């Protein structure tokens, strides 16, 4: 049991930190431009695929640096020539634009790299178990993922709270017009933040690609969870996104490890539920099976009862 708790905590923490790498960019972009970027998870996928392609020529490590820069650059271009054109048609058009973008990126990735998963391997340098606890090993690469994501989190926090760049970004979040009056190029700041957010997503892709599976469906499966994180944490709040990422990472990882159903619980207090009855599937479904539902349930509940999210200061 202790083994399960420790490893689930570690994996949950890891998953949560990955989610945060994505959610931080998404929530920054949202609070600046009011655009909920539907394609954010697609940039994560692009990062993984770019990293894979680069690793085939020059190895994993250059990919770790080059892929996020490349994707960040593409993101900035898309903001400049796509999103800014659509901006005048309103938020619905912007959401539709990013929706179409996600669609095209998925199709493009399928065309270029095929529909099946690519063989993106953990670099040799980290291909060993970090430690063994109760006969279960924890791979070094996962430790590396944890270190990179925590380091990115700390760097981001320092950048936003301690530097002049962060000061301007934070000012542009709440008072874009005033920042413009003071002589800063606000559209340029938007473009940079968009590109930077995409780059962060790509970084998450490069570090997650070898550990999870690099396949065309990875964006579509992570995208909705990301929205849950951002909304539950409170739109525009980095701290909220951090807490929500960790919470959802832990909840999902622990839920997957639990093999208990309602019928089992009822059986311990002496009520026997018939698996062949009308709602039999519901009674027999284990927590592991309903794990995919939990985040969405959380999303709907939060939007109903606390629309500003955990830490948000404005309504969704």
């Amino acid at each position, binding site marked *: 049991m202790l083994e399960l708790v420790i490893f689930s905590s570690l994996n949950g923490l890891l998953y949560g930190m990955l989610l945060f790498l994505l959610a931080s960019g998404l929530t920054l972009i949202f609070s600046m431009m*009011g655009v*909920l970027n539907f394609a954010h998870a697609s940039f994560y996928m692009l990062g993984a695929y770019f990293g894979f392609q680069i690793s085939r020529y020059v190895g994993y490590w250059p990919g770790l640096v080059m892929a996020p820069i490349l994707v960040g650059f593409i993101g900035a271009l898309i903001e400049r020539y*796509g999103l800014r*054109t*659509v901006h005048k*048609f309103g*938020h*619905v*058009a912007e*959401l*539709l*634009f990013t*929706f*179409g*973008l996600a*669609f*095209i990126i998925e*199709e*493009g990735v399928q*065309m*270029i790299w*095929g529909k099946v998963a690519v063989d993106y391997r953990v670099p040799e340098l980290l291909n060993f178990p970090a430690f063994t606890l109760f006969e279960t090993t924890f791979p070094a690469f996962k430790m590396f993922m944890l270190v990179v994501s925590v380091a990115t989190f700390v760097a981001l926090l320092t950048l936003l709270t301690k530097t002049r760049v962060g000061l301007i970004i934070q000012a542009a979040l709440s008072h874009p017009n005033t920042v413009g009056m003071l002589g800063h190029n606000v559209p340029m700041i938007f473009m940079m933040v968009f590109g930077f957010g995409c780059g962060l997503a790509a970084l998450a892709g490069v570090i997650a690609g070898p550990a999870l599976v690099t396949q065309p469906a990875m964006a*579509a499966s992570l995208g*909705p969870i990301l*929205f*849950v994180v951002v*909304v539950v944490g409170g739109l525009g709040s980095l701290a909220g996104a951090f807490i929500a990422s960790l919470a959802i990472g832990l909840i999902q990882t622990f839920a997957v490890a639990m093999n208990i159903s309602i019928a089992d619980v009822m059986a311990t207090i002496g009520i026997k539920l018939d698996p062949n009855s*009308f709602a*039999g*599937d*519901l009674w027999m*479904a284990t927590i592991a*099976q*309903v794990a*995919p*539902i939990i985040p*969405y*349930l959380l*999303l*709907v509940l939060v*939007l*109903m009862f606390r*629309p500003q999210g955990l830490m948000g200061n404005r*309504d*969704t």
Partner: protein
Amino acid sequence: MNALTRALPWLSGIAAVLILPHVFSSGASISIMSLIGFGIIFALSYNILLGQTGMLSFGHAVYYGLGGFITAHALNIIAGSKLPIPLPLVPLIGGIAGLVFAAPLGWVSTKRAGTAFSMISLGVGELVAACALILRGFFGGEGGISTSRTSVLQVFGWSFGPQIQVYYLIYAWCLICAGLMYAFTQTPLGRICNAVRDNPERTEFVGYSTHMVRFLAFCIAGFFAGVAGGLAAIHYEIVTSGVVGAGPSGFVLLMTFIGGTGFFIGPVLGAILMSAMQSLSDITGAWLLYLGILFILMVMFAPGGLAGLLFMHRPAANLHGLAKLAPAYLVAAIPGLGLFAGIVFLIETSHHVLVKSSEGMQMRLLGLEYQADAPLTWALIAALIVVTFLAFRRTWPWVASAWSEAIKPEAR
């Protein structure tokens, strides 16, 4: 507008429904036209949300899919216990199912508008899609729920075995639903929906509850989506858990938006175009990519959709200026078509190199045979795109000046 001009689109629609199966009488084309039929209902129901009330939903297929599942189960029950319900009434069950599910889920999601509504609809959609994999009894697991449309009570000798009879059934429902939805846009509630879309704050001040208006619109949209789902279940005779997922929800959004959300005819055009494009999937493996590009271009340059582009010409037509536009359009069309061909060549050739390289590099497109990986091919494609794009840009001022001529009131 007198009664005749108002009835003209409907009469031509009915005429098209009656004539087309005789023109395109092959089994495949009747099947495609049947698809278009319930596609139209589904897209029109989606437009009640997006175009009429301004709610961008990412989970509308939930009501379509649940309508389909309930219809399939109902058909099985009717056939099993020999209930005296004929098939033509069964889609109504799907509609009621759509309404029943739309009421509680809609009450929750329509509490908020704008981006929050979109997020909730996405969450609800994912929730139902995930449930579909857990509740195997109701959703049939991987295999889905299969049913038979011929084993229920038959009236007037219609067995609904042949596809052509199903075609007429689908279009009878399609015309009824389209008529009802059009009538809905003309009711006071339908008008208030527009007000909620354009200025919710002011609508609240006038004394309407925007939540209530959105909720009612959502329920009506859910009902018609359920009817469409029921017809789909009757058409395919099987419903799989995929229909409640994100795929169909996104598809109906593309369909409605490309058709045009600002006009009633828009989603109809979108449904026809999308089904036609779907049949392209036999010709090109990259048709979803074309679809995505078309969608992005529409969002960026023609947010009114196809219908918006068509109706843009109404002022010019009223002023008898269309003749002045035609030459400019013709001139712009030459490089425009060249650019289009260049992009098609680019996508198809890359698709061939990337996906079908095992079949050899020799390929055929638009009657041309060429080597897909030859540098000359790529240079020619690049040259075609660049040259036609530059030429296309040069025609824009012509078109613009032709436009200003065309909408100028005629000098007396």
